[in-house]
């Protein structure tokens, strides 16, 4: 009797584990398939002319340079605003903030920011930056909108990295006569740098791939030139992919997949760099 129940228990375990393995496999396999398929379909479209040319023939031919440059500018603009602010907020939460009602309110606000739908950020950007502050449909308005959306990612990952630095480092530094800011600047930040960098890149990756927040704040359907000031509108890769896959009839499949592939490379290379920095930092960590 006891043996029988032990066998059935083991059977249940084996069955259960097989189901879990299968589920994990079914979750992960499509990711690999999707990436492989886009590479397979998109690679033939990639050429020097495609990457450095302007769209022609109603975007049915030519290259996607303005979209690539636009996404690059937007990512850069987002970094300029969100990186200092995000790291500052993370330092505040990890090094200065007391555990009181205000700090809890800040945390609640960050959680809220992280959950707000991307299209609502678009509405907000339209209301505040484009119309109220009169930046117009511009890189500036789009970057600011994307910055606020990226902020919670940067804050929470940076805070985690800062908190991982052992308390004894701070105690030693302060006891040697350093001020609090000197301790943060010379001891804590360098130790947390790789973690912060990982968070920053993951946040910017999200900003680079987003479409909804830039719909009403930056994105131009088609522009025959590159933007030359922060107050210009610009094309952007995600929006361009959206346009050529939904609004342009008779679009050659090759260009669609080529654009998807360029966007994917842009975003996933950031992802890989972040993963690499993190794993290298983990291997090197001495505490």
């Amino acid at each position, binding site marked *: 009797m006891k043996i029988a129940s032990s066998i059935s228990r083991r059977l249940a375990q084996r069955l259960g584990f097989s189901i879990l393995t299968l589920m994990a496999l079914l*979750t992960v396999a499509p990711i690999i398939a999707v990436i492989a398929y886009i590479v397979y379909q998109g690679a033939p479209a990639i050429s020097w002319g495609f990457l450095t040319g302007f769209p022609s023939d109603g975007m049915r031919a030519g290259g996607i340079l303005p979209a690539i440059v636009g996404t690059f500018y937007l990512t850069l603009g987002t970094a300029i605003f969100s990186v200092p602010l995000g790291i500052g907020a993370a330092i505040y939460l990890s090094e200065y903030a007391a555990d009181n009602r205000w700090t809890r309110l800040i945390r609640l606000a960050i*959680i809220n920011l992280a959950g*707000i739908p991307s299209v609502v950020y678009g509405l907000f950007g339209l209301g505040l930056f484009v*119309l109220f502050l009169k930046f117009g449909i511009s890189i500036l308005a789009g970057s600011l909108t994307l910055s606020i959306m990226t902020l919670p990612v940067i804050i929470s990952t940076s805070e985690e990295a800062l908190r991982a630095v052992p308390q004894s480092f701070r105690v030693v530094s302060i006891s040697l006569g350093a001020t609090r*800011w000197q301790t943060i600047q010379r001891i804590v930040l360098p130790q947390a740098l790789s973690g912060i960098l990982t968070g920053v890149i993951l946040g910017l990756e999200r900003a680079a791939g987003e*479409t909804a927040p830039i719909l*009403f704040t930056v994105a131009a359907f088609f522009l025959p030139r590159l933007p030359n000031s922060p107050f210009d509108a610009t094309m952007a890769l995600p929006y361009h*992919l959206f346009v050529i896959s939904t609004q342009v009839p008779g679009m050659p499949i090759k260009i669609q997949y080529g654009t998807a592939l360029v966007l994917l490379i842009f975003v996933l290379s950031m*992802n890989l760099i972040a993963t690499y920095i993190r794993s290298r930092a983990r291997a090197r960590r001495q505490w």
Partner: protein
Amino acid sequence: MKITAKQGSKLNWSEFMITRLIVASGYSAILFVGLIFFFLLREGLPALWQVPLNSLLSSRWYPTEGHFAILPLLEGSIIVTLGAAFIAIPFGLGTAIFIAEVAPRWTREALKPLVEMLAGLPSVVLGFLGMMILAPFFRRFFDLPTGLTAFTGSLLLGGIAIPTIVSIAEDALDAVPRSYREAALAMGATQWQTIWKVTLPAARSGVLTAIMLGIGRTIGETMTVKMVTGNAPVLFKGLSSWFSPVRTMTATIAAEMGEVAKGSVHYEVLFLIGIILFLISMIVNVTASTMVFRQGKRSERILS
């Protein structure tokens, strides 16, 4: 090396400034949430005076003729989200349990970056593939007039919710003290029984948080649903609605905001939908975070 009084005061002054800046950036998050809510209200609330309430509560969304019924859009969002939940919850939790409890170390190290990659896939890319591959496939497979349906949207949105669910649920499972598992195993439970009867219940509130935040993401997802759900604002008519086109709140904003005149009633109603989305995400996130908070409190009690 002695610090002279002058150097010292300069040091203090810059330290003072930097500290102010850091405190200010800490509080900026509150400012931004406030600004977002304020501007949504500023642009969206006037709709309540402009549009009669029974128009907002009727069943037709036809803005060019002045029919602004939000109900079909709300239903569209709910249908697509429910479908996504059916897919994302079992697969997300299954993967999280597999990664945290079952997988050998090397599999875990390989799976986690892959799931993160899914989180990094731009939603417009998922929508694009949905249009190109999934929708034509479902049209033929189910013999439908169009493959752009709520079902296609649910499937893709499930994929968007999965990374959130996996990473938070896995963290929660990881945080269960090792001694819990060891105690269960020592009493003769199999690993499988330990997972079901000890580890999962112990991580319950974290798992619930994972589900809520994952589902919260799907309600707000915009580009994927806009591209694959067919954009037809209709009321729910039984199970068959799953296999016909729908229109969500997010997709409506994305589709129509570009074409409306600023300050028109249509513009205000789109902001009103934005307010609804903001409130939904706020409720979901605040509830989820207080759940984690409570769990923290409980573990502190047990440990002290």
